[in-house]
């Protein structure tokens, strides 16, 4: 299985953190809060597109709220595969960093 990119990890983490409130605007804000990075919507949606295709996230159409020009919010949630993929990349990262404790120690 291909590893997740950092961007994908950030987005997946944001979706988990947001629980049921994960949609475009909130994901983007959450990512910024977590990492300080400002995503472009184009980037965000391209990544979400990939995640969706890989089957790591699902989406549900929310109610059409006012102030969105008639566009409904699309809410995202992780699938079990998504969760395990994120877990895998966590394990991978941990393994990498734990192998060089002296680097982190300094």
């Amino acid at each position, binding site marked *: 299985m291909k590893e997740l990119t950092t961007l994908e990890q950030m987005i997946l983490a944001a979706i988990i953190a947001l629980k049921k409130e994960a*949609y*475009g*605007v909130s994901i*983007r804000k959450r990512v910024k809060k977590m990492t300080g990075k400002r995503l*472009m*919507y*184009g*980037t965000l*949606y*391209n990544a*979400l*597109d990939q995640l*969706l295709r890989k089957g790591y996230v699902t*989406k549900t159409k929310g109610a059409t709220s006012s*102030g*969105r*020009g*008639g*566009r*409904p*919010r*699309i809410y995202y949630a992780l699938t079990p595969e998504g969760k395990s993929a994120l877990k895998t990349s966590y394990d991978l990262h941990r393994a990498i960093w734990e192998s060089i404790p002296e680097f982190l120690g300094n």
Partner: protein
Amino acid sequence: MKKPDPHPPKLGQKLLSFLTHYESEYSISGDCGEEYKERVRAHGKSRALVWYWGQVAYALAASCRLSLSIGASMFKNYLKITWRHIKKNKAYSFINIMGLAIGIACCILIFLWIEDELSFDRFHENADRIYRVAFSTSDDGSPTNANGSFGVGPALKRDFPEVMETVRLRKMGQNVKRYVGYKENKFYESRFFFAEPTLFTVFDFPLVKGVPATALKEPNSLVLTEETAKKYFGNEDPIGKVMEADPYNDGELMLFQITGVAKDIPHNSHFHFDFLASYSSLKEDTDSFNGFYQHFTYVLLNNSAAAGSLNDRLLDFLHRNWMEDPWYTLSLHPLVDIHLHSRLKSEIEPTGSILYVYLFTAIALFVLVIACINFTNLTTARAAKRAREVGIRKVAGARKNQLVRQFLGESLWLSLVSALAAVLLIHIFLPPFNSLTGKEFSLSSLMNPLFILGMAVIVMSVGFLSGMYPAFFLSSFRPVNTLKSRFSHSSSGTLLRKGLVIFQFSLSIGIIFATLVAHKQMTHIQSRNLGYDREQIMVIPLNKDLRQNYESVRNELLKHSGIENTTTSALVPTKGSYHLSLRFEGSEENIAQVFYFIDKEFVDTYGLKLLAGRNIRQSRSKDGALELLLSELSIKEAGYSSPQEAVGKSFNLEGDPGTITGVVNDIKIYSFHRPQYPINYLVTPIDMHNYLSVRAHPQNISETIGYLQKTWKEMVPNYPLDYFFLDASFEKMHAADQKMSHIFSVFSILAVFVACLGLFGLAAYTAQQKTKEIGVRKILGASPSSIYFLLSREFLKWVILANIIAWPLAYYAMHQWLQNFAFRTNPSVWTFIFSGLIALGIALLTISYQAIKAAASNPVEALRYE
């Protein structure tokens, strides 16, 4: 009160929605809109807008990158395959690329030409609001003359508030040259105008030196163009200098002070001046409504919509300002229409024609379409070659639309390569094209966004047009069939191919036919008898000194054996006409006819044939009656049955009585676009004459000219010698037609050439397909000629069918064109047959190479082929 919710820009929303794969599955525009609102509240509208557009742009770019990255590897493969195909089938690729390149190059060149034709007079800022007053002497009021009388302009401005400004422009006669001099620089000039000061406010003719508002105000002021200033003054500053000129050609030199230097006039102006004298210097009564002169009136309206309603009120205007029963009527014509739409008499300069714009657009498209057809034909014909590739790709999982995309991509690539080749062709052929059209295009004029856009459109449409059918045709193959056995061509493909070849040849035959008719018409014009000896007549403008001692100059000239006779006259053919009305005996009606004022040697010098009566010798006979010489056409208009009957009859010329002394043949004084005029001749004193005509012996013409120059220097030292030959002047009137006919033949040759390229390819393909058949036939004893016939039979059938389709259409088109000429040939049966034969011959020749090669080949090779 609550402020309304801020809305993100509509266009941005549209663009985001345009990325359908975002829109249908996600909600990018909704998200952006939501955050946009927050940002408007937090940071203000402008910062939010910047942010919003940033998001839109990025999303667009990201979306493009995504689809590209997916397609990139496949794309690379397609490109590789395309390139391999080009390399493997060099001949076919060459035919395709060459044909398309020629087609595209033709399109671009003609596009340049058309763009230039359409640009005439548009450089004036007010172009849309400037109109020219056209005069009409026809019964139905349709405009006939570009020129007219003096007084109309100011009266229009006085009567109609819509008319903001008027400009009057006066030229001395049609195509005439007048003396202009400064110190030792003395020339005869043809572009000498008188103009009102408003010329500089209505039109955009910028001055390099001098003040536009005052330059033409005072009498005897003169504005030159930069080029003219250089010609007379070199590097001196011309402002304030005084030039002499003889615009009326009456020997009384007028002095002009130079008050301005104008920028040279752009070539796409419907008139060009070298000299502009102030209108107030004119000697005529400039308020008069009577008479037509080389005098032009332009009006600047306050809005372009006003012209229509103004046109309806112009008759009333004439009643009010002139007379109850005016003999001419007026109408307004848009300035920008003059070049392409004017068919009026007495234009300042020869105009173009919208017909040619249509004709050339058609021919450019024809060449391109023919090239596209080549591509389609060759690709489908050779589909079998690629059937296996299609089969393999399909088996490997390629979907049909992927294959369509592959083949379309291929044709787009070829079209792009052809476009590059076309640019190269244009680079090479631009100079000959310039000399052909008489315009000055450069490659740099191609480097504008409009052209690049046009080029992109051409490349795309050529790619799609020619690749569409092959793409669907090829991608619809069934893999099982293509892989199982040798794939044979389908019948539907052949039918379409036949249809396209026939269509191609119909176009080519049509073009050949048109070229033949145009050529015939041109020869018709050149060989047509004008009624006088145009070959060896030299014409020299008269001046004061020459008029005074004409007799001695004439005697001196006649001493030379190369000079046969000389005459002086007010006008010569090609240089305008005077119209006077006269009443013949036995008629109550005054009819307007052309008058030539001549001396007694005119008939002999010009070689006119006396049909009845005697030549005129003097202005009036002893009893004081005018002596008049008629032409054949004028006796017809007068109602006499024969020249003999007319002789001795009396007439009344605007109150002056006289008798008809003789009748001569008709002569042609204008181009063949205009009808023959009835011409009458009167002898008048030399003071009324403008030209000296010399009939020289055809032999040793250069020596005769040398003698003339020597005599001139001795006897008329104060004036420069300026002369022209009548036949050259006559040809100049048809220069535009000649040019068009040349351009037409060049492009028709190209069209036929491209069509033949395709035929050559198809013939090669057919021969290759039948290699085995030919081998078997030869072994069984078929003669080479029967093989040749076998191969060419089918093509010939197509060409003959194409003839039948092309003839009526081409005939109709050329019939329209010929309506332009008052004197025209009619396409004979032979023109039809000939155009068919030419196409047939070229087709045969093209096929022959392949057919003979096939017929002469060794059957053993052909059969071992398997």
